[in-house]
């Protein structure tokens, strides 16, 4: 694997195994698109079946949702910056922006959990209606992905500190950035087709 290193490419593309991993992760993102599409389809079918329970406009709060959106959007941007500085072999900037990304991600999670607790206190639980079942599972799956991403990123930061920038750590950093951007893409659709749609109707 350490053979055939092509130094003209960015670190993460330099070895064959790295290129395999990056392509493999793109294909995994393809699978993730299908996974979230299925959850959106379920929400599309069940999203208006309130069963006498609360409706979207009863519970959604624009301000909270906007803050969550801005946190995640900004974290996607800072994650991009981290990779940008990685390509300039600037370890310090990479770490700074990557840690900011994580903090923003954690902020998003905090807001989302607070939002969920708030709903539950208002009597809107996963068991209340088909609308809320599909809402909580769609949002929960996204939130679980963010949580997983944060744990994964912490592991990666430890490895970056231990080993510095090598083709392997650079590849791992690049792949987690793809994952993080993808979670933002999913959020755009949640924001539009769950929250905005719910507040229009």
């Amino acid at each position, binding site marked *: 694997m350490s053979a055939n290193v092509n130094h003209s490419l*960015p670190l993460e593309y330099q070895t064959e195994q790295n290129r395999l991993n990056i392509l493999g992760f793109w294909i995994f993102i393809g699978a993730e698109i299908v996974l979230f599409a299925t959850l959106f389809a379920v929400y599309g079918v069940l999203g208006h079946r309130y069963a006498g329970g609360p409706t979207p406009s009863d519970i959604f709060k624009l301000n909270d949702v906007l803050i969550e959106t801005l946190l995640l959007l900004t974290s996607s941007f800072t994650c*991009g910056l981290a990779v940008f500085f990685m390509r300039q072999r600037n370890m310090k900037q990479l770490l700074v922006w990557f840690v900011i990304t994580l903090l923003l991600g954690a902020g998003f999670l905090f807001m989302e959990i607070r939002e969920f607790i708030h709903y539950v206190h208002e009597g809107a639980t996963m068991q209340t209606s088909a609308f809320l079942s599909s809402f909580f599972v769609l949002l929960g799956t996204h939130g679980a992905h963010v949580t997983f991403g944060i744990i994964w990123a912490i592991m990666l930061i430890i490895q970056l500190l231990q080993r510095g920038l090598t083709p392997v750590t650079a590849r791992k950093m690049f792949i987690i950035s793809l994952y993080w951007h993808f979670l933002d893409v999913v959020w755009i659709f949640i924001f539009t087709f769950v929250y905005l749609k719910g507040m*229009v109707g």
Partner: protein
Amino acid sequence: MEHKSKYPVSHVVGFLFSLILTFVAVFVALKMNVSYTIVMWIIGSLAIIQAGLQLFMFMHVTEGEDGKTNVINMAYAVFVAIVIVAGSIWVLTSGHAAH
């Protein structure tokens, strides 16, 4: 590959556009007085544009020796996603099944 520029121009531009698109969507959805269908079409299109921004300006989907493969992969995934979402809604909310 990315240009060897010193400043992350494409990231900054992408971020600014994302912010603008987000706020335009909020404005269209909550402040404009047009029909529900039109609102959904507009904000749906804005979401797709913003997803495209992420894909091309942040994730650099066309980059590297597998750029073409990645584009085909994403296109096929989007095709499948549309089939699942539109198909399920169509099948389960039309005809006698819905009643």
